[in-house]
């Protein structure tokens, strides 16, 4: 058996093909694992908040810790005026985290290793933050592109650079998550393939690497979800408070 390291990223449909007005809406393995991740989040939060005891059980502890973690993150980076956006950032963070973590299980599929998924998530953040900025400040939101104390001669150039820098936000947000997840999983598969091909004699070294890489990947999976959420908070802060 030849092990292709990119084979794990293949999307195939489960069940019948659904076509709606020329758009393929079939249920795929990617959708299946998104549903699994979302269901895991919901069930953990449901069982964690079901029995509210003074001395928390483990699952209640996890729920409360994740709440305080995200609440503190929002407070530190975006200030107290971003409190109403807690549900948005919390669901974004937990969804990305669980997609990454479910992808670490053997035989599973990593949803966040596809750029279209991460790009849609980043676009939702980008578009909603832009709308929020215009709704809150009106056309004064465009002042974001005009830094203070710039000579008028340089202004056209600076404005173009600022606009490019603003438009690069969803790209950098999505590419970061996608590239990290895909590179990590490919590397794991390549080392796994080495174990098979080197056999009993030489396979122990790549096996050790595989174990170490799995640990690293779990760290990266958490870190990327954290970075995704914290950058959303920073962009929110820009839209709400409007100054550099």
């Amino acid at each position, binding site marked *: 058996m030849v092990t292709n390291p990119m084979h794990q990223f293949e999307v195939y449909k489960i069940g019948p093909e659904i076509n709606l007005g020329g758009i393929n809406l079939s249920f795929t393995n990617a959708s299946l694992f998104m549903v699994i991740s979302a269901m895991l989040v919901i069930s953990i939060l449901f069982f964690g908040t079901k029995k509210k005891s*003074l001395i928390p059980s483990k699952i209640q502890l996890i729920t409360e810790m994740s709440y305080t973690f995200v609440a503190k993150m929002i407070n530190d980076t975006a200030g107290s005026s971003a409190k109403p956006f807690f549900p948005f950032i919390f669901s974004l963070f937990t969804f990305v985290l669980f997609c990454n973590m479910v992808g670490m299980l053997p035989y599973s599929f990593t949803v966040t290793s596809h750029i279209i998924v991460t790009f849609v998530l980043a676009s939702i953040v980008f578009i909603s933050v832009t709308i929020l900025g215009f709704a809150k400040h009106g056309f004064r939101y465009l002042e974001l592109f005009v830094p203070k104390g710039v000579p008028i001669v340089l202004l056209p150039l600076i404005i173009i650079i600022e606009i*490019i820098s603003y438009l*690069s936000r969803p*790209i950098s947000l999505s590419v970061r998550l996608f590239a990290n997840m895909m590179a990590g999983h490919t590397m794991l598969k390549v080392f796994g393939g080495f174990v098979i091909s080197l056999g009993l004699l030489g396979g122990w070294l790549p096996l050790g690497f595989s174990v170490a890489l799995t640990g690293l990947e779990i760290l990266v999976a958490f870190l990327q979800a954290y970075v995704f959420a914290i950058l959303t908070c920073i962009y929110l802060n820009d839209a709400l408070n409007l100054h550099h």
Partner: protein
Amino acid sequence: MKDLKEISTRLEIVKKKIKKNTKNDDGSNAASLGKALKISTELVASVVVGSAIGFLLDNWFGTKPILIILFFFMGVAAGILNVFRAAKKMNKKL
């Protein structure tokens, strides 16, 4: 309520232990790794966006190689600006 009292004394002991352990460890390894990953893509993304804008405008106005070159360099400038800002933000926190 005897149960609660016992737990509170146990909590105190554990808290003291955690305090002792965190004194030597700065505990910011994961956070700084996140920042490093953040900066690396920041630079690339702006260059990509700048070049894409230049390409589109070139197709639109029919000025094939000029605008894409111009916007490529603007993208580089925007990327450096982004990295500079991210680094400045880190400096402020320290």
